[in-house]
């Protein structure tokens, strides 16, 4: 998965949003939400800041194109190698996540398309809710992948889990 941080330049938030709409056909979320167009997703992770991802894309190409398209309106930085991303799905996912995610994931509080940046087991993560399956994506820093995995598997063990590569 190719990933890049996108930070709007000073006073260029609107221009940045317009450029993204023009090139990717999505409305850039203003809050912690995700907007997808095909395989390209923009997830709000802070004021003026998004993580753009593209499933299956070449990292260098995706980032170069994004940078070119957003030149003068946003700073684009490759983060494709910075993150471990896991997709979690299943009826007990919320019970697993409750063992470390401090954010309220009840369906009334956190809906499909919502994004949260938070700390899980002292590790900074980005959580995206994809659908009501429920399915969540969690991105953790690459260097802490082992510790994150240790927490995740320990938390899921009670319910049982399968691991597969995508």
């Amino acid at each position, binding site marked *: 998965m190719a990933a890049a941080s996108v930070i709007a*330049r*000073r006073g260029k938030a609107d221009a940045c949003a317009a450029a993204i709409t023009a090139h990717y056909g999505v409305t850039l979320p203003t809050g912690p939400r995700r907007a997808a167009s095909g395989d390209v997703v923009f997830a709000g992770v802070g004021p003026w800041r998004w993580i753009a991802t593209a499933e299956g894309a070449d990292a260098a190409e995706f980032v170069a194109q994004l940078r070119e398209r957003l030149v003068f309106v946003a700073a684009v930085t490759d983060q494709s190698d910075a993150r471990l991303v896991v997709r979690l799905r299943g009826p007990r996912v919320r019970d697993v996540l409750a063992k470390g995610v401090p954010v309220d994931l*009840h369906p009334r509080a956190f809906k499909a398309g919502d994004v949260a940046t938070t700390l899980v087991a002292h590790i900074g993560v980005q959580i995206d809710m994809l659908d009501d399956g429920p399915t969540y994506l969690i991105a953790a820093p690459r*260097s802490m992948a082992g510790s994150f995995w240790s927490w995740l598997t320990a938390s899921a063990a009670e319910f049982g889990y399968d691991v597969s590569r995508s």
Partner: protein
Amino acid sequence: MSGTHRLQSGGLIDRGKPLSFSFDCESHAGFAGDTLASALVANGVKLVGRSFKYHRPRGIFTAGSEEPNALVELRGGVRREPNTRATVTELYDGLIAASQNRWPSLRHDIGAVNDRLSRFLVAGFYYKTFMWPAKFWELLYEPLIRRAAGLGRAAGAEDPDIYEKAFAHCDVLVIGAGPAGLMATLAAGRTGARVILADEDFRLGGRLLAERCEIGGRPAVDWVAEIEAELAAMPDVRIMRRTAVTGVYDHGQYSAIERVNDHVATPPEHEPRQRSWKIVAKRAVLAAGAHERAIAFGNNDRPGVMLAGAARTYVNRFAAAPGRRLAVFTNNDDGPRTAADAREAGIEVAAVIDSRTGARVTRVRGRHGVRLIDVADADGRTSTIECDALAVSGGWNPAVHLTCHLGGKPVWNDEIAAFVPGALPPGMTVAGAAAGALTLARCLGGGMTAGVTAAAACGFAIAAITQPRADDEGAAVTAMWHVKDSRGKAFVDLQNDVTTKDVALATQEGFGSVEHLKRYTTLGMATDQGKTANVLGLAILAQASARAIPQVGTTTYRPPYVPVSFGAMAGHHRGRDFRPTRLPPSHAWATEQGAVFVEAGAWLRAQYYPRAGEADWLKTVNREVAATRAHVGVCDVSTLGKIEIEGANAGVFLDRVYANTFSTLPVGKARYGLMLREDGFVMDDGTASRLAPERFFMTTTTAQAVRVMQHLEFCHQVLWPALDVQMVSVSEQWAQFSIAGPRSRDVLAKLVDADLGDAAFPHLGCREVTACGVAARLFRLSFSGELAYELAVPARHGDATIRAIMAAGAEFGITPYGTEALGVMRIEKGHVAGNEINGQLTARDLGLGRMMSTKKDFVGRVMAQRPALLDPERPALVGFKPVDGARRLRAGAHFLKIGAGATAENDEGYMTSVAYSPMVKSWIGLGVLRRGPERIGERVRAYDPVRNGDVEVEVTSPIFVDPEGARLHG
């Protein structure tokens, strides 16, 4: 089978599920639904432990988490858990428990001699006796006291079980599942609100399980079952059994401890024993009930004396008879009720001694269990009554504890002669007995109102609910605290062996404040936190000092409400998961090489790479240094903080956050940068490279990476928001390797597609290259003083890249080096690092004063010019060598003039870093010395009393190797 004291019928036990257990190696039988305490009662076991100080025989006193006496060691081997309350220990088949604080046996305990010596063991005994000589504390007093005091023994081995932490969120948190809590949950749940009902018991119902009462014309337990079924069917109501809410924190946060698998011998695989919860609730209803309190009279601690409410619990809920002939001593209507319940269960009632008639119990007789009680009536006539159990009720104390955790003070209520909640934590309401409403009807009504109100406050419309019919029976109480004509010790706090005499003595000695009383006598401390004792203690203190109870006040209730194990507090975070570990990209490769690792902050870094035959780490490090300086070495430096800074004002921004100038840095060049705090001291150092006119790449030290990022965000968002600057950490994105040594260029020439000649790529150059077919960045930077490069590749290629570097370097003798060799080489070059950037030294102190630009403002500039920081007497950075080349240096040693005494006034500075230098062939050091740069060649003492170090050293330049910098060019 069923136990000598098991009633033939009744109770909420499952007689179809018999369980066997052992107490002090003796086998007993119980049923599912029993607690350890109820099973002991059913088996006629009265003596269950010895008291803390006097080793007096003690029995079961309560039926809940407030138990002061019946603390046992539960389970055996590595799962042995001391100080477990038998009253909240759910019975399971094969349970093993043992009494505590006795030797050689519970019945014959040598420590009981303390009871005879009690004249000397009064309140304040430890303070008075062990005051002098003070130095004997560690040597003698403390070990002595520790052996004599204390209760159970910890397992002494690592706990094999799993513990967890978890988060929960709700609209309404209901604490306690008695009549008030159940009504509150029902009322709130029906509105559609998200409700959590938490109760420490394994069965919902609270006091309803223990009393013979009716709700809506049916037995209360049937009503409980019906409510429970309705709640279970509500998707947004979560019932948490075995879960005690232990603390209240700001803004609707609550801590709770769930004893998930304490009721089985071994938790099922992958399941935790306990789980500690953080619950976030918009509103809370406290329905924690009330604790019954005792009355102080002679030998009121004897086994067989128990609270009347507990006696009813054992009779009604557990079908276990506390005795065959029961007497009741009461100051309220619970006395007659207890007698009635006992008679109904077929237990003989010897007497009801009601203090409201002037009658009282003056003494209990029978050392290991009640045999006789001495009674006096209003006219002073005395009599002796034969009985084997005595139920005592001194009234009820609302469980106000959780209302006090944010500073609320309970207030005295004369009607029930007890403290009731005062100012409440925001968002909390109190219902039922916890609010001082001591009748069933008031509990149900109060709970319903609280539930409706709490849900409405969260925006949920009221749903249909009616209050079921129930008794509004009286609860008249006339305060009676202490039988003054008692004979024998009259206990106030059973757990801490505090007697009425101790309270009186404390008052007499001037400890008149309730907080002083607590600390002087230990009243209210330990596992029960005085739940049955505090108010009694206050009342006696009030009497002794001729004040009213409200004037005496109460002690401060703090979390946790019930004991919480350290395991539950740690949860997942123990052993290697104590905190997250960060692994650099070369970790797998370094592991294959047999590297020894060191924790550097959260990172696990290769410290050195030992080879077969190397006797110690120093041999290895010397080899790594020598090989790097002679040939070439490689080190993973991915742990450096890496930040990309973009924007039209990026250069200006860097000028403001660094002491030196970056706006003039040409594209394709890197520069060493020094960052100060606003107070003028050095915060961090690193480099910044200009990748494009409006794009910089900054590195920070490993240690300060997170802090620097926060500081930069502060500078941008708070100080200078108008600047067009965007910054983001790329620490995780890039793997970065330092390749250092005279042959480093030759190694890189095989890996990258660029002209590495001095002209095309000079020292402090940076450029994008292709390395092993991957888009990479190359920097010509040197920390070692050698010709050196840092090659950065996207992190996924880090492992392949270190292997490629090693392969390419094989013909040049490339050697991987770790943090030790890195440290040696930077000390040899006099480069500062974390030891010198210690928050107490300025740029001037470090010999970097000239880096502070005079042409611009920057963070720390003004404060760095404070006269005291410009004082030439300040210690400044120099190097040190032992005069005797064989001596070892130690960081932390302080410098003294030769011949000067080792006093603080003579202190001239301190050693910050030391290393053995294979180049100098002795230990070398960096340090700060008063007027150091002027004293090169002078000798001083490096004095280190902590490690018996006292070495004469010569002051040198901080640069030990290649002062001209010729090696930078290979």
